[in-house]
């Protein structure tokens, strides 16, 4: 019967096609990347350079967890299809990367391929793709010689079969990952900008949080050449990682190079203080940047300009709300809540105290298009990062139990519309959503 033949044909073609796809991707995975790399000898200098680069790349953020040996993995990361657990990248031959050649290491780092399959892009190979051969060799030397081997097994993912099959990732990688090429500065680029670009676009992997993603989960841009989406800000967990571009409100337009560099090294500048996941980045990674590298990264970031940069002037402070509060007029919605909960630290003039309690007037995070950071911080509190350069840690308490959703709404809207701030309103529904997502137990 014709229809039986039809089904059979479709079935055989389907299965053959699937096998071909899987086989192709398997072969593709196995042979991706440089086949032979001879590394330089692992001198103490090379290992130290590798240790520094591992700090810049913040490998520990994912591959080290408290209570376990460094770099032995085990961090739980939630994906849309189930939780995955980071791997042991110590030189242990059984559970770690002890048997990796330099080529294997390079393949994992820049191509996203290891042990014959594509890595989940939670491993930001989509940013590490530009690492130079010298730096790859240094990192390899560090992870083979500078890190103690830890006999810690890798935890399999919680992703159920068939979703746990890896070969579709190969296609994702082929389609979306940037071509792994060692970083080349643009011909006309300033040396310091180039140095900063190498870090920010590469090991620093800033875009992994600060650049928005398409529905297929790849970053919309990986360099400034890819357009204005690059580092334009993105929602990560329940925060909005702000735009690192230069332009009007909500960008780094008002920051100086020195302030940015200070922020990277200490977690605070007069323009803002780190919160959320960025606190961890400062503590474990960027506080260890050399002064020169921090300045270079800052110089590079300041060179990324929106079309409206220059048209928008600097932030203009408006004293009207402060004057009203000083005169005992707390009639503006949210004003009384601000005085009762916020003003002791952030002051009725919204200027805060430099590098202790951040200013709210003209603050890029406060004025971001998406108010989610402000809502999250009010509900859950925040703690500034403790770094060698800034050992004091300042904590803002959580106000979730003290303020209702409407209270928080009024407060957010008050803050985003006072002292010269001009940013959109939020609603009690938005606040409720953040409260539920970040405080499921109330």
């Amino acid at each position: 019967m014709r229809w039986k033949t039809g089904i059979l044909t479709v079935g055989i073609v389907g299965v053959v096609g699937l096998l071909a796809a899987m086989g192709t991707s398997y072969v593709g995975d196995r042979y991706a990347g440089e086949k032979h790399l001879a590394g330089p000898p692992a001198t103490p200098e090379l290992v130290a350079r590798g240790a520094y680069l591992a700090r810049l790349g913040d490998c520990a953020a994912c591959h080290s967890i408290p209570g376990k040996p460094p770099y032995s993995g085990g961090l739980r990361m939630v994906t849309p299809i189930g939780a995955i657990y980071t791997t042991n990248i110590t030189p242990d031959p059984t559970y770690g990367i002890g048997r990796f050649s330099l080529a294997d290491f390079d393949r994992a780092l820049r191509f996203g391929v290891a042990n014959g399959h594509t890595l989940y892009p939670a491993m930001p190979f989509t940013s590490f793709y530009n690492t130079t051969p010298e730096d790859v060799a240094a990192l390899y030397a560090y992870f083979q010689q500078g890190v103690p081997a830890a006999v810690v097994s890798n935890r399999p993912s919680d992703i159920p079969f068939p979703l746990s099959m890896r070969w579709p990732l190969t296609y994702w990688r082929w389609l979306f990952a940037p071509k792994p090429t060692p970083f080349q500065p643009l011909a006309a680029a300033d040396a310091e900008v180039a140095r900063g670009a190498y870090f920010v676009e590469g090991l620093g992997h800033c875009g992994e949080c600060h650049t928005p993603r398409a529905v297929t989960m790849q970053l919309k841009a990986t360099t400034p050449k890819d357009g204005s989406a690059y580092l334009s800000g993105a929602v990560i967990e329940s925060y909005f990682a702000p735009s690192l571009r230069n332009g009007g409100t909500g960008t780094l337009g008002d920051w100086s190079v020195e302030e940015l560099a200070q922020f990277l090294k200490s977690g605070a500048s007069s323009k803002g203080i780190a919160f959320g996941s960025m606190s961890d980045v400062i503590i474990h990674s960027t506080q260890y940047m050399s002064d020169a590298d921090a300045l270079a990264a800052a110089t590079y970031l300041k060179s990324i300009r929106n079309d409206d940069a220059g048209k928008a002037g600097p932030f203009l402070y408006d004293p009207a709300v402060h004057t009203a509060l000083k005169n005992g007029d707390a009639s503006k919605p949210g004003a009384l809540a601000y005085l009762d909960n916020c003003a002791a630290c952030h002051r009725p003039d919204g200027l805060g105290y430099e590098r202790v309690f951040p200013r709210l007037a003209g603050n890029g995070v406060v004025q971001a298009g998406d108010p989610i950071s402000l809502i999250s911080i009010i509900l859950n509190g925040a703690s500034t990062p403790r770094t060698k350069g800034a050992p004091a840690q300042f904590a803002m308490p959580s106000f979730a139990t003290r303020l209702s959703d409407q209270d928080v709404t009024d407060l957010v809207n008050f803050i985003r519309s006072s002292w010269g701030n001009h940013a959109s309103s939020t609603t009690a529904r938005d606040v409720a959503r953040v409260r539920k997502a970040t405080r499921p137990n109330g």
Partner: protein
Amino acid sequence: MAERRKRVDAVIIGYGWAGAIMAKTLTDAGLSVVALERGPARDTSPDFEYPRIVDELKYGVRGDLWQPLAKETVTVRHGVNDVAAPYRKYGSFVLGNGVGGAGVHWNGQLWRASPEDLRLRSHIEERYGKSAIPHDMTIQDYPVTFEELEPHFDHFEKVCAVSGIAGNLRGAIRPGGNPFEGPRSDEFPTPPLPPIEVARLFERATAELGYKAFPVPSANSSIPYTNPYGVRLGPCNLCGFCERFGCFLYSKASPQTSILPILVDRPNLEVRTGAYVTKILRDSSGKIATGALYIDDSGAEVEQPADLVILSAFQMHNVRLLLLSGIGTPYDPATSEGLVGKNYAYQMVAQTAAYFSEDVEINPFIGAGAAGQRTIDEFNSDHFDHSGLGFIGGSQIYAGATGGRPIDQMMLPPDVPHWGAGWKAGIRKHYRHSAPLGTMGTVMSYRDRYLSLDPTYKDAHGLPLLRITFDWHDNEYKMAAYSASKMEEIVRVMKPEKHATILMRPGMPYDVRIYQSTHTTGGAIIGSNPTNSVINRYSQSWDVSNLFIYGASAFPQNIGYNPTGLLAALAYFSAAKIGDSYLKSPGPLVPA
């Protein structure tokens, strides 16, 4: 049988201001250090978080941050023939507890001493003759000078972000500051906060009388400030919840806000809380300390061996531990033998409440422990001629409350009822138009004022409590009356509608029920040789050369200033010597 822990280079008993200073010094030098604190771990977050901390009943009245008296207290009697009774409820002084100790809940008034305070006996004898000092007054000189301590006063003030104006900068008298202070090598690290209203009125009144008012030196930072350790402090907002409370603005200097942030990650420092030290252990010769014995949270006895023992458990507990450990000879007032417990002193205070008319707007809730207050030093120490007055010593006279808290700080004239409609009417009339002035004055040391172990009462572990034998002497009544008369003179110029003075007069004994001050001093005093002191100029025990004792227990008599600055300067002075000399070659630093 006590569990024995691994030996460390140094053990610190008591983790408050002095303990934190020594923890930094010793870990800087690379020593392995264990700090033992009998109370809980405490930090600004979460323990002093706003709004929970601004709870007057919990912290200001019931003393949630203080030493629980049910577990350990002191006993008090007036004279050697009296029977001491336990101090069961907080009144006269409050005792710190937990990491940071009293450095968490103090006001932050951070003074030095006047140069002559440090050589008091010599100075008084030189100026007024030997007969000016009564036979039973046992004051003596410090074995260290103001000049030697000056760099350490300066350093601690910078660590604490003290706000003020220098009155004597390298010998030049400056307007706005204290003209009677010893020469400073540097200006204060942060500027003073503007005067609160009563202090402003006080400034005007004292200027009319020809006195030089100046801002109370405040370890309440007026601006965000990074101290010499790289630790940043926040700004004081005059919130009115200073003394008795932890600071939620990171502004009041405490070990937490000033020193501990750089100690947090030191691998060679271990802090053990819930560790109640009961004894300093010594070897069979009795001349070398071998560590500390403590009871942990579970009730188990633990021995912590160490090569160096730092005793920084607060004035009272320093003396108690020496007595419990049998170190040195307990002082016996009958024979004048022994030195441990000798020369206990306190602080003599007086207060005038000024009730102004309703057009004088005092907002009493605006206040800080020290910031915003103003004071004069004309009648303190030996800054004035005492000839013919019949006493020595003196007081600072200051204006300003630390807040207007409803339970303890709403003042009322004596004729207003204490409850009911009349009380409410009185509060309504006076709350925003009243303010206190105060005097804080010297207390000399005497043969019959001392500390010892109580023969009857014990702590929760069965160990004898410390017994205070103390009452006022003629000298202090006269000094207080004189200071109060000067204060009233100032008050009259401020023109309140009425005022009421509280003053200790002869016939009024020391009353432990009323809060006066926590500046208890002496009992392990500093001196030039083992016949007149328990510790030498480097705070090293004459009896046990690897034991150093820090706190106001060192003071041979009390000054007319808050003690923290002087005890910290002595600690830093000692710390420098330990770093320079002792660690290289342990042993007595001063020939006996």
